[in-house]
């Protein structure tokens, strides 16, 4: 019995200390729960803090950030959210859908506002009603299709790999299939259930003779992008990314939103809430309308694609020289 008591005592001390630490801070605490470490999500978080600063708030005076990431584990995301709720944070900022779901569940009791970002479809994720708002990272599908059309005037089919369990990907593929014909494309979507199947699926698409591949913001697919690129480079098929980080790795081009900007927009919304100018419940979620063209000249040259002047003027060179 003695050792059980000592174990419990250790926990009591740890938790009390932790709870005590949370209380000594005076400015409102913003709990940031990020689903995992990932270039786009990191950019989003940095943009978020910048957005707060842009709105005239000073860190450690007007707000304090408490950052946690769940390492892509749902159960950990739940506990992070409970921690924020127990420490009575002023608001929770959730980056990516599973983090937002967990925060929204934990915030229900105390009605702590939840601000999300990097969610493609907040309505499908049931995060559109209640004391919750944020920004959506819906892909600029029209811009991407237009970009592909201009870079590959002869192309007929676009292959897209996606994870069937990702609601974000499923809704994006739907939009591609709906809008593809308007630009004269047939969309060849191929679903996978887990990351290990992605490269096999890439082989299938290449074998089907698609003219190019276009990526969504699908974590499973983007996670193994380098090995996809190896195969497509060999086959001479260009791959279009969905945001700047993918172009940096070796995609030829992308019409993508800037995650730093998305985070900044979210930060500005939070500043309004902290100042009491608006509440999360009354603010509708926002989508980002601006996008950038990103190109990787080295990758384009390898594929023998010439960039028309109208694109080249606007595009941001993102490849590694």
């Amino acid at each position, binding site marked *: 019995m003695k050792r*059980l008591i000592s174990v419990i005592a250790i926990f009591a001390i*740890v938790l009390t200390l*932790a709870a005590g630490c949370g*209380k000594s801070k005076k400015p409102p605490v913003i709990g940031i729960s990020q689903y995992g470490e990932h270039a786009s999500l990191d950019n989003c978080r940095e943009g978020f803090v910048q957005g707060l600063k842009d709105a005239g708030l000073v860190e450690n005076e007007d707000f304090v950030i408490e950052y946690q990431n769940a390492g892509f584990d749902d159960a950990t995301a739940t506990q992070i959210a409970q921690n924020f709720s127990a420490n009575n944070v002023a608001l929770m900022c959730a980056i990516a859908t599973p983090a937002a*779901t967990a925060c929204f569940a934990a915030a229900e009791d105390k009605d702590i506002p939840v601000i999300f970002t990097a969610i493609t479809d907040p309505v499908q994720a049931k995060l559109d009603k209640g004391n919750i708002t944020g920004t959506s990272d819906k892909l600029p599908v029209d811009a991407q299709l237009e970009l592909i059309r201009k870079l590959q005037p002869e192309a007929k089919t676009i292959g897209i790999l996606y994870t069937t*369990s990702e609601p974000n990907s499923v809704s994006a593929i739907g939009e591609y299939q709906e809008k593809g014909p308007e630009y004269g494309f047939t969309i060849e979507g191929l679903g996978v259930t887990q990351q290990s199947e992605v490269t096999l699926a890439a082989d299938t698409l290449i074998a089907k003779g698609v003219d190019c591949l276009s990526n969504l913001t699908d974590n499973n697919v983007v996670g193994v992008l380098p090995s996809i690129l190896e195969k497509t480079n060999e086959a001479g098929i260009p791959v279009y990314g969905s945001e700047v980080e993918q172009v940096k790795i070796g995609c030829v081009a992308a019409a993508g939103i800037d995650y730093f900007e998305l985070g900044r927009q979210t930060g500005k919304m939070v500043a309004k809430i902290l100042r009491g100018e608006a509440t999360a419940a009354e603010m509708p979620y926002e989508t980002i309308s601006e996008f950038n063209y990103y190109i990787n000249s080295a990758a384009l040259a390898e594929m023998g694609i010439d960039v028309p002047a109208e694109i080249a003027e606007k595009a941001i060179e993102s490849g590694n020289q």
Partner: protein
Amino acid sequence: MNNFLDLLVGTVTQGLIYALLSYGVYITYRILDFPDLTVDGSFPLGAAVTAVLLTNGLDPYLTLPVAMLVGAAAGLITGLIHVKLGVRDLLAGIITMTGLFSINLQIAGSNMAIDRATDTIFTAAPTMALFGGMSLIYRKLIVSLILAIVFKLILDIYFNTKSGLLLRAVGDNSVLVTTLAKDKGSVKILGLVIANTLVALSGAVVCHEQRAFSSTMGTGQVVFGLATVIIGTTLFKNLGFVKGTTAVMVGSILYKACIQAAISLGLPANLLKLVTAVLFLVILVIGNRQKSGVNSNA
């Protein structure tokens, strides 16, 4: 102190909900000596079924028995593959788990969320009638506590029935079962059915609590279950009067407390798992402190 209390309530609630899963792993791993990997599939299976039923307006309480039945079927499949087709225990679980990944997605379509207007077991009329005066986190605690204790007691009683004793005998001394003219295969299947019933129930309750099903929520649950069983049984090793089910319940709460402690200490996020591992080690060492020599069960 308020912060601490809320944190404690939230953490214990998680521990109790996942204790249902731990009971299942306790039955397969500890009693049957069967490393059952079906868990990674049957846990989200319970959640998937629950998510679909809740969004279709089924009474929240009725979703639990349905999820349990589906979980039982998953256990039955692993059992049949192992016993009737002669596939090794580890592989039988892997086969079912792999298949369930697709089945779960087939059931739910994709990851699902349940909106706040839909009642869960924590907000349904019967719960509100009894505990309506409490805030939501206390209601979650009470309902989870009731579930964890009710199923603990049912298991404790079951283990002392003839069928329950046979179950224990299969793990300890399977030759004895054969000499009693009982088929140890069917006893194993029964154990797997009971275990996965509990695991699916745990998944169902998590779905109620989080208002969400995600296809990847099962990843690592077997490891979680094994850890809780080992932590629990190690801590109470010298206390014969403490039931195994009680021990794993405490183990589950301690596991969740470990993670919460790591989060609360504000450690670099990427070190979370490492810190959790160190905390486990501390618990196990404290648990073994008064023991001399090496324990073969640890």
